[in-house]
Each structure stands twice: as structure tokens, then as C-alpha cells.
């Protein structure tokens, strides 16, 4: 499997008053193409910061962020926007759908940022929501909203699908359903999925498990026998 993204000596520093605070420091890791990567760690470990950097939503204060061999850490705003538009799909913990658009319109919105998008209806069919295409987010359950969010993310056919605590706001059954969907996207569609969570049991479904603590990567382990979403405990 080829490497899609490599992080080399990445640091993210914030200034808090007179002191510097490191959200991430000396992070090295590789993400292979087509993998299900799970980033684990307790609250405040730096998981979301890491995800933001990988997705081009923020820039590191040091280190190299190589995507298909190019250092996106050197990108300016416009280049980062283009990177996000063409290569990254994001699934948020609280779905972040545009409340004034219907499910279909939320997915179709992606046509505005990328030309060769998947048909929005097909994406909704994939997540099993073609019946809800014309409902507004407020008319849907949390699980349904998250599935729309996934449909929106995959509509762009991104190389990298980033998920920030995608089941964090969902109950056990709905959470499992969402995970199944993400696994399907990864295994059947061949997309690289990077998922951030604090739930250690997610490690069982991953191809690679990265553990983060106090802004550092403490381990990066390959899982030879990834399991199905049914094994996840909440």
C-alpha cells in the first residue's frame, strides 16, 4: 500500500499570554492509501488539532505535512482551500449540516466546490437516505443527520475522509450503523478514512491505530485483523 500522507516532526504551538503552549510536538506518522486509521487519545491530547492539520483546516507551526509527496504545510490560504475542496471530506461530531438546506441540497452543495462530484441522490442512496432527500436537518434524527454528513463528505470522492468523533453524539445502535457505513466507504469505495475518537474500542475496526497523548504520538500500530463495527462497545 502506498503512503498517502506523511507527517514529519510536526508541531502546533499557541501563544497563551507570555508562554508558548504546544498542542502537538514532534509528531511523525504515515497514513497509507485506502486504510481505516483511528486516532485515539483522551480529551485535550491533541487529536482534533492533528485532524485539523491533516485536513488542511489549520497549518502547523513547524514540520512537514506531505500529501502525495507535496508539503501542504507550505501552502497558502488559496492552496489549502483547493486542497480541501479536491482531496478532503469531513464528517463532524455535530454533523454541521447547513440548517437552511435540505438533505439533498446539503450534499449537492459540493458541486459548488468540485466539478466531478458524485450524483447527490446516489450518495444519499448509499447512506440509505434517499427517502429523506427533501427533509431539512431539523426534521431528521441525529443518526440520519450524520449519514447525510457522510453522504456530503463522499460526494466529492475525496482521497481522504476525516471524521471527528463521528459517533460522539449518537446512541449505540446509531453509532454502529454510522461506523458500518464508514467502513463500507473505506473497504468498498477504497477511500482513506481517518477517524478521531476517545473510545478505545474503535481500535478493533482500524487498519492502523495511532495513540496520541499530551500532544505527542505515543504509538502507531498496524492491526492485522480488523473486525466489523458490531464489536464496538460504548
Amino acid at each position: 500500500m502506498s503512503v498517502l500522507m506523511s507527517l514529519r516532526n510536526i508541531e502546533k504551538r499557541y501563544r497563551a499570554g507570555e508562554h508558548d503552549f504546544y498542542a502537538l510536538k514532534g509528531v511523525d506518522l504515515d497514513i497509507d492509501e485506502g486504510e481505516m486509521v483511528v486516532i485515539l487519545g483522551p480529551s485535550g491530547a491533541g487529536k482534533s488539532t492533528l485532524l485539523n492539520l491533516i485536513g488542511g483546516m489549520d497549518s502547523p507551526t513547524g514540520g512537514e505535512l506531505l500529501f502525495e509527496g507535496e508539503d501542504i504545510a507550505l501552502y497558502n490560504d488559496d492552496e489549502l482551500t483547493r486542497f480541501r475542496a479536491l482531496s478532503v471530506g469531513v464528517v463532524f461530531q455535530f454533523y454541521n449540516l447547513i440548517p437552511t438546506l435540505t438533505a439533498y441540497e446539503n450534499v449537492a452543495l459540493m458541486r459548488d466546490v468540485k466539478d466531478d462530484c458524485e450524483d447527490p441522490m446516489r450518495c444519499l442512496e448509499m447512506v440509505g437516505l434517499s427517502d429523506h432527500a427533501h427533509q431539512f436537518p431539523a426534521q431528521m434524527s441525529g443518526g440520519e443527520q450524520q449519514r447525510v454528513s457522510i453522504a456530503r463528505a463522499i460526494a466529492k470522492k475525496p482521497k481522504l475522509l476525516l471524521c471527528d468523533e463521528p459517533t460522539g453524539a449518537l446512541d449505540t445502535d446509531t453509532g454502529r450503523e454510522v461506523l458500518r457505513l464508514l467502513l463500507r466507504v473505506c473497504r468498498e469505495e477504497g477511500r482513506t478514512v481517518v477517524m478521531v475518537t476517545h473510545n478505545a474500542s474503535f481500535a478493533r475496526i482500524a487498519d492502523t491505530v495511532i495513540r496520541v497523548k499530551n500532544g505527542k504520538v505515543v504509538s502507531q500500530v498496524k492491526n492485522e485483523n480488523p473486525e466489523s463495527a458490531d464489536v464496538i462497545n460504548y
Partner: protein
Amino acid sequence: MTRKLLRDLLENKIQFLSIFLMSFLGIYVFVGINSEVTGLKACEERYYEECNLGDIWVRGRDFSLADMADIKTVNGVKNAARRLETKGKALLKSDELGDDPDLTLYFLEDNDISGIKIYEGKNYTPGCMGIWLDKTFAKKRGLGVGDTITVKLENKEFTEKIEGLFYHPEFVYYVENMASMMPSYGRYGVAVLDISEYPLDDPEFNSALIDAEDIDNLGDMTDEEKILARRIGERIKIVLDDKQLVVMDKSELLSYSTFSSELQQHRSMSFAFPIVFVLISLLGIITTMSRLLSRQRVQIGTLKALGFSTRRIMVHYMSYGFVLSFFGSIFGALVGYRTLPAYIIGMFTDTYILPYMRRGFSSLSFIMIVLEVAITTLITWYACRRECALIPAEALHPASPKVTGRSFLEKSPLWDKLGFSVRWNLRDIMRNKLRSLMGAAGAAGCAMLMFSALGCMDSLTFITGWMYGEINTAKTKILMEEDTPYGVTVDYAKKYGGQMIQNTSIVLRSDTAVKTGTLTVLDAGNLMHFQDEKRGHIVLSKKESALSYRMAQMLGVKEGDFITWNIQGEDEKHRVRVGQIYRNPSAQGITMYREAFEAMDCKFRPTEILTNMSVDTGLKDEEEITDVQSMDEMMASMDEMMDMMYSMAAILITAAVVLAVVVLYNLGVLSLLEKRREMATLKVLGLSTKTIRGILQQQNIWVTLVGTLFGYIAGFGILGVMFSDMPEGMDYCIVVYPLSYMLTFIGTLLLSVIVNHVLSADVKNIEMATALKGQE
């Protein structure tokens, strides 16, 4: 994204509707009035061009054919024509319009300069028979083409067949006599005949009309054109070797100047209000957009994370301001163009006589629309630039609350003595300065509009009372015929215990300006009173000349300066020192006592008598009496003149009230929306809904009071603009009665309290858990 825009607009319809409405109203008023002014100006120019309105009038001798030939040789003269101007009476009866109305008679040789425009009937051709009547007079008197009319000229009566009805470019506006403030067409008229029809012996061509080469009929007469006219006049005097000739250019023509200044006044008004509306709509857009954006912060983060560029998102949010102001302006322009000019022109037709009165769209309206849209869009950009510039990782999280230290007030010992609600509100105001400022600005806007509208009404009402309660305290005015022997006038004055007054048109000159005005000469009596610049009572010196305040401003002179004047139609110039400055709302010029006048070797020729006695109505029928006017009639005539201003004020007041409600409601909704979380907190802390609503109302009242105070100041500014272009003959005072201060105060406060009360009813619906959820 377009759908998001449309749905966002729908979701925030009240706020956005208010922005739409403000753009609409501003452009509505501007385009409406501007189209009226543009259209009428174009009609006026076309009319003057068609009739070739004269540029210069020379009077003061019998112009022979040789004279005319000489005049035509003068440098700058394109063409010249002579006519015989005189006054007669039409022998007609009418209960309503009075018997035997005055008729201004023009006996012509041709129709080349200041020609008549035929409304109905035959064209005038040199040498033809019959009489042509001014259309308005004829219609009011029920006369038509083919009828006959008997005219009395001096002692000769002659009957003519009416060949046609006309419009005359020198009579767009004309009044009965100098004392009239308002036309009452039908009581007097204009007639045109060929010189061959002159019924008396030895016709005397007493007027020469000049069409100047470099003076056109486009726009108002410029200063260069006035100088040119004066030079041509001087050259004519030299060519004819006659220094006594009186030269007048068209800017001195009552009809021309009154109509021009009326249009100018409308133009000024048309600017003042859109600016206010645009400013208030900007206030609306800046608050609405900045609050919408802070609410949509996470959405912006999401869009960015999904790959939308900052520019794209910025354009999206700027399009809110663009779409609303664009449609508001276009709609305002369309409705304004279609409705307002017709309404104003409708009011004009009673006062001004033009063959056509149409609206017209000017490029200025277009520029105003572009400006309105551009400024609103720019302000939207300003309001959203901060949120849009955030990097997605930041924008995806709600803004962290501002950390502010304890203010000076909070540290003072007084702080602990204040009640909870006072402390809460003071803190809230200090921590949310922009929001409080916007709230105060909204109240200020509302108060300003109410105050200026009420102040406008007060100032207009005041003028009538000022003129006929403070300055002229006579009960009746008796107007004498022009050639009444002095002894006869004295007899009438004695009979009615009256004060004789001479009112004469004069030309006044200072080093910098030339203006026409009125000379008022007072005989002994106490029916005219005088006031200084600040309207304090003054006694006029018997020895010196006094100049009216407005005329002093127009001439650029002050007390102690010298000015020159001469009676229109006479060449003798008098240089006088301005001894005093007095104010008079309706006549601008010089006032002096008979003693001072006669000391200049001038002959006192009274034109009217003021008296405190009641006068028989039959007196009007006396040969030497032109008219008898009671004070009530004069006040009614004055009020009638103010009608136009009232109507304009009414349009603006209506717009102001709509605006006030919209602005206060909009700001109230937004402010409460922003405070939802704080109110939820207060609820959690155990405060009752009633207490919380009380706290909100308290802050609202403070903010409104501060705003109202600024509203008064701004209101005075608006009044200044509204009154800055009164016709030259008028003086005005900005007067605002205490009642208007009170009404503004009560109106603004009441409106604000009601809006707050209605909106704060929502406090009881706030669910503490929902309101506090999801906030970090």
C-alpha cells in the same frame, strides 16, 4: 449557496425586510422627488425653448423702429422685439372671483421672443384681429374660443372676439399684486393682441425684449449669464444714449425665479432624506449581518472545511446586503417614479402653469441607486470580514467569551450600593458597547425623524403667526390702485385710522450680489413691528434704512455696510447705510420711515393702508381700491402657500414613522436574540420572567433616553437642510415648540418600550437547557 441565501433571508425575514424597506424608502423618496424635479425642469426648459423666453427686458422709453434696429446691432444681441405692455380690466362678473378682473395686456408686433404657446384656437400672426387669453384665466372665467370679451383700457371700452387660449412663458407663476403671497388665478389674467388692435391713440412700445446670443434656456440662469445680461443692458443704454432705461434679466422675473427656487427646494429635500434612510439601513445591515455571522460562525467553519474559499463565502454573505439593497432600491425607484411625481405634480397644477408637466428619470437617480447598493454591500463586507477570515479550525468552534477586567465603576465603592438590575445592566452595556451604541443610534434615528417632522410643521405654522401676530398686527389691508392721487389715499387713511405704506419693487446691489426685493416705506403708525436677528423687538430708526435679514444674507452685508438700490423701472440709484437688520418672513428688502425716504428726495407714494378697523366689503368696488384683505384672508393665503411644504412634510413623516417602527423592532429582535443565553442564565439563577423583563426594559429605557438626546441634535440638522432652500422672498426660523420636544420624547420612548415589551414576552419561552446547550 443561492438556496442558503434565500432560506437565510426567509429565516431572518424581519431583520432583512427592514433593510429592504429602508433601501426602498430612501430610494423611493429620492427617485420620486428627483423624477418630479427632473421632469418639471425638462418641461420648463422645453417650454422656454419653444416659446423662446426673453433673456433681457428693457423698459423706460417708447422704442422706435430705429431704436430696435440699433439694439439689434449691439454685441451679444441675437434678436430683439418690442411690445406695448399695459393694464386694463376685463368687464366680467363673478361672485366667486370678483368683478372686472385686472388684465395684463400685451400688444405685439410678432411672436418671436417670449411667444405665446397656443392651447386652443388660432395661432397669433402679426396683423391679425381678435384677442388671445391666458388659458387658466379663461377656463376659470368660463370663456372659450369664439366668445367675446369687453376690455376697459383707461377710459376706453372695446370688445374683441377670443381667437385663442395660450400659455405664456413669462406667466408660469404670477400673483395679483405685491401683497399677494399666493396666486389666485381667475381673479386676474393676461391677454395678447396685435398692436393694430390698440384702441387708444399713439401706441407707445414701452418694452423691448432681447434674445441674447449666449444665454440659453437650459438650467437656471448662471452667474456668467447674469453678468452678460448686465453688459448687454449697459451696451443698449449706450447705443440708445439713454441712461434712464431699466434693464432686467430673466432671473429677476418673478415667474422664472419662483419656479426655479421651488424646484431647487424640492431637490434639497430629495437629498436630505435618502441620506438619513441609507445611514439607518446601514445601521440595520451592520447589526443584522454581524449578528447573523456570529450565529453562523460554525457554518462558515464547516463551509471552509468542505473546501469553500474565503472569497466565495465572503461573496455569499455580501450578496445578502447586495440582494436586499438592490431589490429594495429598484423596487423603491420603480414605485417612487410611478407614484410620487404624479402626487407632487398634482399639487403643482394649482400654482404653476405649464403646458406639460411630466416626470423624468435622471442619471442622478441611477447614481443614487448604485451608491445605495455599493455602500450597503461594502458595509456588509465590513461586517463579515472578521468571521470570514478565520481559519476553519477556529471558525468551527464558537467564539470564546471576551475577558474584560473590572471597570472603573465596578471598582468604585458606589458599585456595591447599586441594585442588582442596575449593576447587571451597566455591566451589560459596558461589555457590549457596540450593541448598546446601535440601540442608542436606532432610538436617535427614530427621535431625529419625529423631531424634524414635527419641527418642520411647527416652523411652518410659526411663520403665519409670526407674520400676522407679531409683525403685522393690522386687522385689514386696503390696497390702492397704482395711480391713486396722494390726497385720496390720505382721506382713506384718515377715515379708517390707518397707517399708509408704500411697497415697491426694487433692485438691491452690494459689492458681491444683485437681488430684487421690496422697498417698504412706513408712514406714522404702529401696525408694523420689527424684530432683530434673534427675534427680539426693535424700534426702527426714523432716519436710517433697515435691511431684512435674509436679504442681508443674500447680499452678503451686515449692519453698517453700504448698499445701493433703485426702484425697478427707475434709474436713480440710492446708496444707503444698513442701519438695522430686521426679520420678515414674507418680504425681503429695505424698510424705512417716510422721513428717511423723503430725505433722499424720493416721493412717498402709498400703495396700501393698514388698519385695525373693520372695513365694509363694498369698499373693493371703489375705483381707487384694488383689494381689501382681512387678516384672516391673509393668513389663509399664507397657509395655502405652506400647503405644498406640508404635503412634502407629510410624505416624509409617513416614511419616518414606518422607519422608526422597523428600526426599533429590528434592533430589539437582534438584541434579545443575542441576550438569550444571558437570560437563560438568569432564569437558571432563579429570577422570575417578570424580573428579567424588567431588567431588559430598564436597559432599553436608558439606551432610548441617550438616543433621544442625540436625536434632538440630529433633528435640528435635518431641519437646517430642509429650510436651507426657501424661496428668496422668504425668511424662516427653525422653531420647535415644547410640545414637539415632548411628543418626540414620548413617541420614541413609547415605541421603544412597546417594542421591547412585545419582544421580551419571549423570555418565558426560553428553555434553559436548550439555550445553554452547545456553548462552551
